[in-house]
């Protein structure tokens, strides 16, 4: 069987090999955003555009004219962001955000903001279902 199919298997294996090499090499680029910790420890401030992701710290959001000031955190480090641009509808304190722009060493200057919501699908009255779960656990 292999002899009959070698002319298909060889290209298939080659294509797979190329894909695997591509995926491994692109792994760094497949990281969609950087965390405040990475920015502070690994990345030199520059004019290069990058994305910063984290959670909006409660009580840190303020406006200065057209500019939105906020602090995002990854749980370890946090970074002040000055955002000039559209603010998405779901923007809120405690929400996950990704901002796009440059880092000058002290502050992140962004012009694009995306919302990154988590994988949790909870009802607004989740208390009820929590208690049902606990009842189930008790029985």
């Amino acid at each position, binding site marked *: 069987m292999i002899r009959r199919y070698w002319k298909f298997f060889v290209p298939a294996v080659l294509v797979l090999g190329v894909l695997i090499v591509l995926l491994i090499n692109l792994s760094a680029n497949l990281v*969609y955003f950087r965390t405040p910790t990475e920015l502070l420890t690994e990345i030199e401030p520059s004019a290069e555009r990058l994305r910063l992701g984290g959670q909006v710290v409660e009580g840190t959001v303020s406006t200065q004219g057209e500019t939105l000031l906020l602090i995002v955190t990854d749980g370890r480090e946090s970074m002040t962001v000055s955002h000039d641009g559209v603010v998405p509808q779901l923007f809120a304190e405690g929400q996950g955000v990704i901002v796009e722009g440059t880092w000058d060493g002290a502050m992140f200057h962004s012009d694009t903001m995306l919302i990154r919501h988590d994988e949790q699908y909870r009802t607004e009255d989740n208390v009820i279902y929590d208690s049902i779960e606990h009842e189930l656990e008790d029985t």
Partner: protein
Amino acid sequence: MSDATRTRIGPLDVVAAVSVLFALGFALASPRIESQGEAARMLFVHVPTIWLAYLAFAVTFVASISYLVTRKLRWDHVAGASAEIGVVFTTAAIIGGMIWGKATWNVYWTWDARLTLTAIMLFVYIGYLALRRVIVDPEARARRSAILGIVGLVQLIPVHFSVTWWRTLHQTNTFRPRDIQMDGPILAALLVSVAAFTIVYAAMMRHRVRLEELELLAHTAAIAPAGPVAGDAVSAPNVGNSGTQP
């Protein structure tokens, strides 16, 4: 068009249509999803469509192996039909995801790992469908597309785990083993929708596999060796004995 080749609406089609309406009702009646707004109801379409794409490509994979083992063209029909439905639903998942993405992320499309790999998967299976159209001989077509049908499934692994392997804009998987990040009522509505879409898949497969069989019949008739137009059943028209009269 003869009676035998006409497409008929069967009981399965009716069940599929009714269950989709039922699922739509569940989706609208489901409690609001915390902190995500009404747009999050896209969940009840987005997840079932990509589930169908996974299912369809998995069926293509199994049918392709079955063809290579048994050499029965029936399996090739199943593989081809399923891949086509998979392409339709991958497209639906991407379009639905874009609408949801604009409402929630504030962007229709971005090159994060999940989105990019899903798009690549779509194009590979469009390539599979194109391959099926360039080979005329049914046996050769079945053999060659079976290999792509088998190799193609490998992509499902990076597509599905992209959100865990790389940092993406797309949220990570909600369904983790023994730890589902979803409340009961939302989960119930989602499962109804997944079941309804699965019935739609079965109904579409029934029609599409039959179409493949008809195509094979048409092909066999087209390449049949030249002979009397209607076989031996018809003889030359009798114009009387005028020509033989002395």
